[in-house]
């Protein structure tokens, strides 16, 4: 009787094993959860938090997570209006009142509890302010609280803020950056050790979600706090899944391995994700703007003017030479706008009518010639008194968008007789060279706060020297206009002053403002009530829900 050859048997066993593995891996563990408070959302995140202790980190992936765990006293409304207090929504504070021009009184919600059961008190608010302003904690948000002189507790549920002066964004400064911290859990940790405190990797907060688990490099899980006093969150589990780049984020969304993401980067990714039938796209105002910034001082020596860009007229000629609209369409398609100045679309003073230098090739060429920049030796590069019109643009290798812009600018300037080379370096070196002024021109992107009052002075005024004003642009008239705009209580007047300031800056051309991308969040269609607040895309996550009839086995799966 013939016997089955053993190699064939082994092969069949292998195939059976692989099929069994596939079956087991694809078989979801069924959970029992039903009704309105089930649901699991996987958020694909192209970055991982460093720590979940709000005062000691400035990374947006950290903020996305800790904003679900810790509350502010009040939060910005959908309008994004940072002036006054009308558009702010209560969070830990159920109400507030002004007890004089520079005194603000918050009344805490007596229902608020820390996730270990202790009540949230005004002592926690006092402790939080003290921590945020302590040099040992070294918070990146410390400077935003400089105009608050003191925070005291009137009683266990009343916190009093006193300011050094009266100004329009007092309320914003008091509430926007500080997440209230549990004094009873943090008091015993030495302040200089907060950056590495174990609390920061397993925080206990007072928000709608509790921290559950963090697997470094892989995922972080939050679970809904069913006792949350402002309303139980509908989504039961929120899992942040860390992926290396936006391409993989898109692939995971399309493949159904993730449900939600904040933004997709390139237009190709947006088209891929928005074309998937199970995904819905939610465009919102982006918080970033990008520009080619000129170094107005000699690279590495801020005492001398830059041999080229110290000349305002040359900068203006180069700005007029660039066709920003065509570049934008080339790189972003319809997913960005040309910014009217140093503004993201998120900023409330965004005004497309703001005057800037027009794209005018003929005028640019004439101006260069008038300035003495001519191609005297017919080598295709203009020169003046033996100096070539040649410079280098600093670009980070991590940004495909900026590398693409670098090449387009290189080509555009070449047609005007400028020899441009690209210095493509990694982000660490890029940041250092930009910070220390070792560049001719730099392709930079800023993510801005909702208010121009913090981002513009920090980046474009005398006060920003040594901080984010890497090109060292200084114009006293511009600074005065900014100061007046920041101090003006009337919103319409403030808008007018901001516009005048930006038009003045545009005439000086310290930079060519190139792009302000639209942001597009993506969410699985089974998720309802998706509302994205532009300044903080997950701020309203606790109101998102998955209706019972759309729940999948994955939604019901237990931890």
């Amino acid at each position: 009787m013939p016997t089955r050859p053993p190699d064939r048997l082994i092969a069949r066993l292998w195939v059976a094993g692989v099929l069994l593995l596939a079956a087991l891996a694809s078989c979801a563990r069924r959970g029992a959860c039903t009704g309105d408070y089930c649901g699991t959302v996987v958020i694909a995140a192209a970055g991982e938090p460093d720590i979940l202790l709000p005062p000691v980190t400035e990374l947006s992936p950290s903020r996305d997570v800790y904003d679900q765990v810790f509350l502010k006293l009040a939060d910005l409304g959908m309008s994004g209006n940072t002036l006054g207090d009308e558009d702010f929504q209560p969070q830990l504070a159920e109400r507030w009142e002004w007890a004089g021009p520079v005194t603000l009184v918050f009344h805490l919600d007596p229902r608020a509890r820390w996730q270990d059961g202790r009540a949230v008190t005004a002592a926690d608010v006092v402790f939080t302010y003290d921590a945020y302003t302590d040099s040992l904690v070294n918070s990146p948000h410390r400077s935003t609280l400089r105009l608050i002189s003191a925070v005291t507790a009137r009683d266990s549920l009343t916190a009093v803020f006193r300011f050094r002066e009266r100004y329009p964004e007092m309320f914003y400064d008091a509430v926007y950056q500080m997440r209230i911290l549990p004094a009873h859990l943090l008091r015993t940790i030495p302040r200089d050790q907060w950056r590495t405190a174990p609390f920061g990797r397993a925080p206990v907060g007072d928000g709608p979600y509790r921290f559950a688990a963090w697997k470094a490099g892989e995922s972080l899980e939050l679970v809904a706090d069913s006792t949350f006093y402002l309303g139980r969150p509908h989504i039961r589990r929120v899992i942040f899944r860390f992926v290396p780049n936006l391409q993989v984020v898109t692939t995971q969304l399309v493949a159904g391995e993730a449900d939600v993401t904040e933004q997709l980067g390139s237009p190709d990714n947006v088209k891929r994700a928005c074309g998937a039938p199970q995904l819905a796209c939610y465009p919102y105002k982006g918080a970033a703007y990008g520009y080619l910034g000129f170094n107005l001082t000699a690279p590495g020596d801020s005492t001398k003017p830059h041999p080229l860009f110290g000349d305002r007229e040359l900068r203006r000629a180069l700005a007029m030479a660039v066709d920003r609209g065509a570049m934008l369409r080339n790189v972003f398609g319809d997913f960005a706008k040309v910014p009217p100045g140093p503004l993201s679309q998120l900023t409330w003073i965004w005004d497309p009518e703001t005057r800037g230098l027009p794209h005018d090739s003929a005028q640019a060429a004439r101006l260069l010639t008038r300035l003495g920049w001519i191609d005297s030796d017919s080598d295709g590069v203009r020169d003046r008194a033996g100096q070539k019109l040649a410079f280098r643009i600093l670009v980070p290798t991590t940004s495909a968008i900026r590398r693409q812009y670098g090449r387009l600018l290189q080509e555009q300037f070449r047609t005007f007789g400028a020899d441009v080379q690209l210095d493509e370096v990694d982000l660490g070196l890029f940041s250092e060279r930009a910070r220390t002024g070792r560049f001719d021109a730099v392709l930079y992107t800023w993510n801005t706060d909702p208010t121009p009052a913090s981002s513009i002075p920090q980046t474009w005024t005398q006060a920003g020297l040594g901080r984010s004003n890497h090109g060292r642009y200084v114009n006293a008239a511009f600074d005065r206009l900014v100061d007046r705009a920041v101090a003006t209580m009337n919103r319409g007047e403030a808008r007018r002053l901001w516009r005048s300031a930006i038009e003045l800056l545009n005439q000086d051309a310290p930079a060519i403002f190139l792009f302000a991308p639209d942001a597009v969040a993506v969410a699985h269609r089974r998720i309802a009530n998706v509302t994205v607040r532009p300044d903080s895309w997950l701020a309203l996550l606790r109101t998102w829900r998955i209706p019972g009839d759309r729940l999948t086995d994955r939604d019901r799966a237990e931890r």
Partner: protein
Amino acid sequence: MTAWIVRRLAASIAIVLAVVTLTFFLIHLAGGSPCGQSDAQSVAPEVCARLRAQFGLDRPLWEQYGKYLWAVLHGELGQSFWQRRPVIAALQDALPNTLLLAGTALVIDFTLGLALGVYQAARARRFGDIALGNAALFVNSMPTFWLGLVLLLVFAQWLHLVPVGGTHDPVLCSRLDSLQCVADRLWHLALPATTLGVVGAAATARFQRNAMLEVLAQDFVRTARAKGLRERRVLLVHALRNALLPSITLFGLAFPFLLTGAVLVEWVFAWPGMGWLSVMAIGQRDYPVVTATALVASAMVTLGNLLADALYVAADPRIRVRGA
């Protein structure tokens, strides 16, 4: 033998020390700073200055190096600037993932490589041998990351047969507490391990084929066939055992290649192992993590080589260690 082991261990320690020293100075001299790596509003200079002082980065480089070596000798690898936790904790998370990936790839490499080599030798200069030889050459000449991207595109993105990346499904398997979750881990491992293993298998197959051909021409093989043994027994028992020595050498050499290949594969498949950790740490200028990953990787490579040499001696009694 003891003297040989002591000599090899001393050489291994010297190599590891040299790698750590080189890595320490290179990453510090590469420019950049652990402070303010994002495009958000940049961190204020005074905040950065205090951070640099806190991490000891304001001290002269030689002093930092001396302190680092002293700490390493006392089993202290420092704190990660980026992950804000002890470096040892970061390594404890990443190392098992890399060992799992590289170990599985090693199994695929040698199982597949040996099988193909034997098959080709048994059918030398016939169609199967030529076709497989060309295919192996093709695969062997492909960069690992490129092969990974192609496999990812085809099997994950187009066919949806395997996951896009990661080590597990975070929804269903946050813990390894069921057979289903073990299967899920293996399912996530399939594509990265295949990518890494199949390139090595192509090289192993070529080595093994040549070794087998040499052995098959020996008298004892002719004798075995003359005794009437079945061809399978001649190939697998008599010839293969004698043709394994070159593969053992290759085994020792394969581990470093797998570790370096794993850097790219881990990045492509979002596999959070040592390679992924070191790439992230370099980008963040997280000096303690970069140096620690170099230390662990070099220790693993030197130990792998040591192990391969020991296996070689054990496998072939004709080889005697001088001084043993």
